[in-house]
Each structure stands twice: as C-alpha cells, then as structure tokens.
C-alpha cells in the first residue's frame, strides 16, 4: 500500500488536471503501450508512431476516464482502438494485410541463422487474421488472462478462449507446412 500510488488514483488526479500525476502515469506506462503497439503492428516505426499518437491523445482521452476499470485495462483498450484506426488508415493506402506482413517483407533479406524464431514469428503472425493477432498480442504478449483480454476487447471470455484455440489450430497448420 505504501509502495506505489495506484494507477487508478493517478489517472483520476490526472483527469482533474494534476500534471505531476499525469507525468508519472506516462513514464510508468509508455513502455507498455509501445510493446503492445509493436506486437500489434510488427514494425518498430509503426509502434513508435502509434505510441506517440496514443500519448498525444491521452490527455483528452483521460477526460473520459471513469475509474470503473483498471487503468491498464483502459489503456490497453485505448491502444487497441488506436491500432485499429491505424490499420484502417493503412488499409486505404496499402494492402489490407498490413502490419506483420510488412515487417516480414522488410526482414526477408536479413534472415540469417539465429533469426529463425523471428522469421517463424512473422510468418505465423501474418497467417493470423487481425482479430486473432490482437488476441495473441494481449494473451501471449502482455500475458493477460483470458478474462482481462475479454474486458479489453469488449468480448465475452468464451470468445477469447475460442480465439486462442483457433490460434492453436492455425499454428499447427503453419508447423505442418514447415515440416513438409
């Protein structure tokens, strides 16, 4: 109780104009936002842009902070929505399968020994549709429980469980293809 001011307390204070609280909150969570952004987009540059957009929008978003969820849940939700927006914007100018696909292409010629895991990851992620990718980013990347993930995505826990089993199924297919 003494160790750290709860995120929720800071968020409430920040929403009321407490600058110091906002600064602490940002410093505490930037990395988290960036990592999730990367896991959603698969590209460092996209992740940085996305994280910056989210940071820039956070002061006004915080006005909508009601304190009815955990701050991190709320922040994940904000991040997911921003990623979705980014995807939509990209879809209008490039091909629909953005994100990890680009990353994988950019990496193609750099593939060397030791990069095998990354190559595999990119391939696996590209083969997943965006909704499953989002779920993977939250469950496997952020290590949220299925319940927390459901809360972030606004889905039922059952849907998240189903999505994860779907991820498994598709991964198996990827592996089977590799084994050929």
């Amino acid at each position: 109780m003494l160790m750290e001011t709860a995120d929720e307390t800071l968020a409430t204070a920040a929403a009321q104009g407490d600058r110091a609280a906002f600064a602490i909150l940002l410093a505490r969570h930037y990395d988290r936002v960036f990592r999730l952004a990367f896991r959603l987009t698969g590209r460092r540059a996209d992740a940085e842009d996305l994280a910056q957009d989210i940071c820039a929008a956070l002061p006004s978003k915080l006005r909508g902070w009601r304190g009815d969820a955990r701050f991190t849940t709320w922040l994940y939700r904000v991040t997911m929505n921003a990623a979705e927006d980014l995807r939509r914007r990209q879809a209008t100018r490039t091909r629909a399968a953005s994100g990890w696909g680009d990353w994988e292409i950019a990496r193609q010629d750099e593939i060397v020994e030791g990069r095998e895991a990354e190559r595999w990851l990119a391939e696996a992620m590209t083969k997943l549709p965006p909704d499953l990718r989002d779920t993977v980013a939250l469950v496997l990347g952020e290590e949220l429980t299925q319940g927390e993930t459901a809360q972030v995505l606004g889905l039922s826990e059952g849907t998240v469980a189903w999505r994860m089993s779907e991820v498994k199924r598709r991964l198996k297919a990827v592996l089977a293809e590799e084994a050929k």
Partner: protein
Amino acid sequence: MTDQDEILKLAKALRAATPEPDGAAKAAALARAMENFDRLQGSADPSRQTSDRPMRAGFWTGIATMLNSLTSRGALAATASVAALAFGVVLTAQYAAPPTGPVIPLSKVTANELAAATTETRTEPSRDTALAATPGDAAKPASPLPPAPPALDDRVVAQAPAEMLAGQDAMAMPIEEAEAQRSARERKQIAEDGTLLLGRADEVDMTTMAPAPMADAPAGGEVVAGLVAPATLVMPDPQMIPEPDTEAYPDFDTNPVKLTAEEPVSTFSIDVDTASYAVIRSSLMGGYLPPPDAVRIEEMVNYFPYDYAAPEADEAPFKASVTVMAAPWNSGKQLVQIGLQGRLPAVAERPPLNLVFLIDTSGSMEDANKLPLLKQSLRLMLGQLRPQDQVAMVVYAGSAGEVLPPTAASDQAAILGALDRLAAGGSTAGAEGLELAYRVAEQMKSDGEVSRILLATDGDFNVGLSDPEGLEAYIAKKRETGTYLSVLGFGRGNLDDATTQALAQAGNGTAAYIDTLQEAQKVLVDQLTGALFPIADDVKIQVEWNPAAVAEWRLIGYETRALEREDFNNDRVDAGEIGAGHTVTAIYEITAPDSPALSVDPLRYGEAAATGAEGELGFLRLRYKEPGEDVSKLLEVPVMPGMGTVGPDQNFAAAIAGFGQLLTDAKYLGDWGWDDAVALALESRGEDPFGYRAEAISMMRLAQTLSAN
C-alpha cells in the same frame, strides 16, 4: 508436439522479437503528451497559458533543439551524464536540506518513477544562483551550448529537455563514460530500497522546488551549489513554480520530567483533535519525517478508538478508566493511562443538525488533494444526514458568498449541485466568510438544535481584516451563542496548523486534517456523531501525584493544552469538549521513589519527608460542563497501584505514545527504539476493524526507514 507447444513458441518468439522502446521516441512521445496535457488544462483555465519568463525561452529552446537533434555518441553521452548529474542533485539535495517545499499531491513514488520524478525536477528558484555560481565540472556538458533560435512555444520547451533527460536515462545505451555508469550505480542503489525511494523521488520536488528556504538551509548550501547546475537544464513549468512553504505549527517544548515534591499537580485540557496524526501520515507518505512541532502525541494516541467502559445512563456524560502498567521503555517506570469514554446517545434521538459548510475556494485550493477531495468528502458526509437536518454553504475567496441557502438535507440534488459548482480561484478572505457563515448559522438555529460551522480550508487566512488572534476571539465569542466551529484541513504547503488548531479550540470543535478519502470517511462518516454532538464542554483534567508513591512524573503530550493549576476551578477558562462516543486518552509516566530509574538523585539535605495517603498513586479530578451550562461539575477518581486491566488498547496506546516520542524527542526512551514500537503495536493490534492500527504500524516502519538516514 502438444497443443501448448505452439502457443508457447509463439509467446516466446513474440516477446523476444519485441524491441526495447527507443529513448528518443519515448521522450518525443512524452513531450507531446505533456504539451497536449498543458494545452488541455490551458483551455479550461486561460491563466495557465501565460509564462512569466519569455526572455528565457530562447536559451531553453536551444538546449531542447540540441538534445533533440544531436545523435552522435558523444552527444548522447553528454546528455546521459547530465541526467546522471541531475540525479546526483536529487540525492545530495535531499540529504543536505530539510524538505521545505510544498508537497505535490501524489507523493508516493517508486523506483520506476524515478525518471519521471527527475522530469519533475523544477529548479526555477535556485537556477539563477546556480548559474551565477561557477558551474564546476558538473556543469561542463551543459556549458558549450550553441546559441538558440527563438522559441515557438515555451511550454514545449519547458518540457522537452526534462523529458529528454528522462528518456535518455531510461534508454539502454552503450555508454562507457564514468558519469553514465555512476548514474546506473546510483539508480540501482536506490532501486534496491523501495521504501526510501518513496521519499526520494518526491523530495526531488520538494528540495529543488523550495525557493528561498533552500538557500537558507543549513549545511546544504555549498554541497548543493555545484551540483545544482546541471539540474537547471530542466526548465520549470510556470505553473509549478512553488510558493514558499508557509506551513506553520505551534511551538512547544516537550513536557519534562517533574519532581512530585516540587510540583505535584498537573493540569491540562483534553484534546480530541486528530489532525496531527494525519499530518504526520501525510509527511511520512511524502517520504520525509514530520517537523517535530507537527507531532502532538496526544492527537496521535487519540486518533485511534479504544474500547473503554462507557458511562451508565444516570452517570456523568463520560466515564474515566484508569490503568496502571509498566512502561514498555523502562521497567523502572510505570504508565498511568487515563481513558475517557463519552456517552454515545442513541443516534435516533439526536436533535436536528444545522451545518454550515464554510469552504475556502481560494486559488491555493485547486490542487487535487484540496477542493476535489473536499467535494468528495462532503458528498460522503451527506449520506449520513437526516431529512430534518439543514445544510448551507458559504464560500470565501476574494469575496465571500452564500452559494447554498439553508437547505433540507433531503434535497440532495440542490446540495450536490452547489458542491459541483465550487471552483477554486482568487485569494482568501477568511474573516469575511466566517462572519457570513455565522450569520447563516444563526438564521438556521431554532431551540434545542445544534449549529455547527465546518470550515474547510488549507489554512490560508492571510487576506482579510483579521489577524489569527482576532479571529480566534471572534470565534470564541460566537461559541458563547451556541454555534460551534470545526476545522477540516486540506492539502499541504501552506497548511496553517497552528491557526487551524487555535480556531477549532476556540470554536469548541475538532480540528481534523483530511489527506485521503479514507480519512474523510473516518472523520466525516464513522465519527460524524462525535464530531458534531458535544456531550461535555470544557473538560479539564487535573492529577495530583502522591509524593509518597510517585517521585517523578511526566505527562506525555498535551504540551499545547497545558493549563495553570488555578485554571482548573475557573469555569471561565476554556478547555476541550468531548463529543458523543469520543474516547480521549492521556498518558503519564511515573517513577516510584525507590525505583532505580529515577532521573534525579534525592537531595542530601532538606528534603521534606514525603507525606501522603498510603496506597494511592495520585488523585484524578475532572471538570466538565454539560453543553450549554455555565457551571462545571467535578468527577474524582483516586489512582491506585495496579489499577485497571492492561489489554491490547493500553499497549497499543503506549506503542503510539512511543512512536510519537521517537518522532520528536526520544530522550526518555533509552534503548527502546523503532523495532520495539513496531513489535508492541503489532502484538496489541487487536481487532482493528477499520485497519487504523495496521496503518499506524506501516507508518512506524516507514518512519523507521526514513529516520535511519
């Protein structure tokens, strides 16, 4: 291959592929966020847009531009070492100077937030001095700055270097420079001690924010001077420039040991305030030890509810329980605890209440832990009122005004609406507001009803006609007409504890300090009845010690409540009141004539043979008035050896008394230290349904850590 393996492989690969955030990108993002944050605040409050230092902007922009554009390894190293040195300042300054600055609202900061806290380092007041002083080696990275282009927006500038520092600091950069390594070392050292850090990070603000007092700080001056320079890179946000800390506490000296032969009688007024405990807690949570003058041991002890025997229906409105126990800190001494338990009248029978909230809405109240917390607190309290109770609201700031005419408590919509409309702004005209509040209170009062003004303030009574003494006299006069006054203190920085306490004392009310919503719950909800319904006024305690059984005595606490011996029987002398259900505890430490623990040797010549009734340790007299009466009544209880049963309550009260002494002047405690206090409190925690005692134990541990430096 099982099902889980693919998932695990994906999870592992996903996490491994995720890069570390880039420091520069992070800094840029955070700067953008702060900029937007300020803009958003600014749009709500135009005054925030102004900067009083346009001349400086160019210089700071220059640094910002440099930090943002240089990417060579050398430059990164330079900025990193600046971060390291800024960090050095944090440590040095906090050792060198006592925390004299205002506490920012959210003060619990941990290791992870150190970078953020560094960002918060605003050194405006000391900047000029530091720049004027020879920067020394410490400042070298900062000195050869190119001239800067003019500023576009000095708010951005204000933030950028700071964010940059934080960003560099957090970045995993391959830097060999010694400064950078030192930075890492120091950070690690700090990170190893989370609790210490609580304070550290926060004190970055306090010490560096402190304006003039910083320069005056003993011992701090020289050490700080050289090191402050790099920190001056961090441009202050105009809004965060602190005002000097104007907290004021009453001066007093700790009660000394008295010789029964010379001074057998002890007289004091009871004190049911708890403000001191909350102030102490707020200090400790802020990461520094409270100023000794802010520690009033009786208020700490009285913060906690104790389970004393309640008076019977036909007895006096309160009952005294005396317990004699061995002093935990000295086996040769004993503690005599006098516990008063106020009667709790059946709640259903309570008369209707007339409450006037007198709310300070001066500019200094806008912090999150002041007006917003006050609004939340009053909302909590509204739930406790009955339909027949009446509420009115008067605000004061610049000019005083009635924002809510007397309204039945059942009309929650009107009351909540008025609460919501409160906004901070302007300076304080406390006296005018107070007069208006009394006028409103008198309008509301009809026969048999209790009227009370609840003054909510951060103690800023500095504008207006009256000096504190004049105000006090005024409140005392109004008390005679049957309108009481309680004071709720909010926020720190210019909390005028002395005035707050004096006003509540004069108004026959309680002074409470509200630092958290939990405290509001305790003061305004759980103990509402006691705080608002006096059952005994002018309660005075007098103890006469028997020289035959007690050679030395010492009253622990109550320094600010001491009365002259002759005041006891003088009904015109004001003293504290007991509210419904209140408990009040006073603790004496006594030493028997034959104890090896006597602090004064017996006189070789001329000591009069101790005479006194055999068997009695002393004699306790209590005077009180029924509310509204002018003539006092007397209660008498002889204090016998081994009186009462020592239970968890008594032990816990003793532990808290020890805690208070450790925070002030532990000279009477000998080897008994923090570990003993914590152990005693732990074993006597008892049932503790509200968690107050558990919290106190955390406070002790925190204080122990803080006092170890």
